[in-house]
């Protein structure tokens, strides 16, 4: 409980395995190595209260690169390309594509207790910003939005748990292009992820991969009062130098007045070590 309460964390992108899709982990590439993590996300939203859009589907190709800078210190860059399809109230469709805000983050792991062959408790701070991609303001906020957070990861045998929390000061953005955390209000994100190794039950000398089931609860609170809580079940296979993951995302609680309600999402991703 204390660990989880201290936990808190990032919201931003990649790290290593034993990490679910939408929640950060206190893991990172070692110095001089990296992880490339391309992901395809589809998000479906309902009526936009600030426009005449009845529903919106966003197809996002997000690539994050994590690189180990020094021991317990890594940098992250996230590039999200988006294709957005709006269904208008008059029955027409409108579409657009662009680059959402980029994210540049630094992660510092300040605590590590490896208590067993497989067991560990780690905590990290994450500092960085989401910043203008140079695209028009339908996608990019055109601003620099600092973010600070923290994350705690606990792995005990087949059970892994990640808890993150972050605060993002939004200095730009507008309400009509906000699909969560991108508007003029500041964004507080909290993610809890449980990662369970389903196979192998026990590692052997020949084990070179593992299957995991994942379950996440991700909360976004915007200082304007909007709250969005999502549940994301998924499955992941992790090899020695790569991993593949598939997640679904469903709303479990929403109270949003200033942006569209989230209806569902899916995500597919891979990770490669280099």
């Amino acid at each position: 409980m204390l660990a989880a309460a201290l936990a808190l964390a990032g919201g931003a992108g990649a790290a290593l395995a034993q990490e679910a899709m939408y929640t950060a982990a206190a893991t990172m590439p070692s110095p001089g190595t990296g992880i490339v993590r391309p992901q395809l996300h589809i998000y479906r939203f309902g009526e936009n209260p600030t426009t005449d859009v009845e529903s919106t589907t966003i197809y996002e190709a997000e690539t994050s690169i994590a690189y180990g800078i020094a021991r317990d210190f890594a940098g992250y860059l996230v590039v999200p390309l988006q294709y957005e399809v709006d269904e208008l109230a008059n029955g027409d469709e409108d579409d657009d594509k662009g680059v959402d805000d980029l994210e540049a983050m630094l992660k510092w792991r300040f605590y590590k207790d490896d208590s067993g062959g497989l067991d560990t408790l780690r905590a990290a701070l994450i500092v960085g910003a989401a910043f203008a991609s140079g695209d028009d303001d339908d996608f990019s906020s055109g601003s620099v939005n600092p973010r600070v957070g923290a994350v705690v990861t606990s792995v005990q045998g087949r059970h892994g748990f990640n808890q993150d929390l972050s605060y993002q000061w939004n200095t730009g953005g507008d309400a009509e292009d906000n699909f969560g955390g991108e508007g003029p209000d500041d964004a507080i994100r909290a993610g809890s992820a449980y990662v369970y190794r389903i196979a192998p039950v026990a590692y052997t000398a020949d084990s070179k991969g593992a299957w995991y089931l994942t379950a996440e609860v991700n909360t976004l609170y915007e200082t304007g009062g909007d709250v969005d809580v999502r549940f994301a079940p998924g499955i992941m296979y992790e090899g020695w130098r790569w991993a593949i993951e598939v997640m679904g995302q469903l709303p479990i609680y929403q109270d949003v007045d200033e942006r569209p309600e989230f209806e569902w999402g899916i995500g597919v991703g891979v990770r490669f070590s280099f």
Partner: protein
Amino acid sequence: MRRFLAVVIIPMVLGGCASSGGRTGGMEGMEENAVVHAGTAADLEATRSVEPIREESATLWVNGLRCPQCSSNIDAQFARVRGVDEARVDLGTGTVTLALSGKERPSPRRLSEAVLDAGFTLVKIEAPAVVVAAPAPSAGGAGVQ
């Protein structure tokens, strides 16, 4: 803000329960791979030696090897250590076996640094010269070279 606190605190509490349960070893499945390496003071001292390991292999007892892709960091870090030909990670026992060769051999301290760089914790090194040498360097003539 009250709504936020409610939806954030609940997952944290659930997470805290899962985490603390794991620490006590009470979770289902924990009996598998319940490897806990606990080195002695002599083992710890041996990992700090700066004398090169003259043996052709060494076994490292490492804590925190929690998953396959995480463990690939071990390969990457030992690939940079002179004198290490191959690193074989055994997640079942939580050990890393190194094949060593060449004139320039790594010391236990250098191997320990590589393990730390990889993100894990070295508990003990088993190479005859190291194990025997650390607590009693003159014992049996098998001291650290």
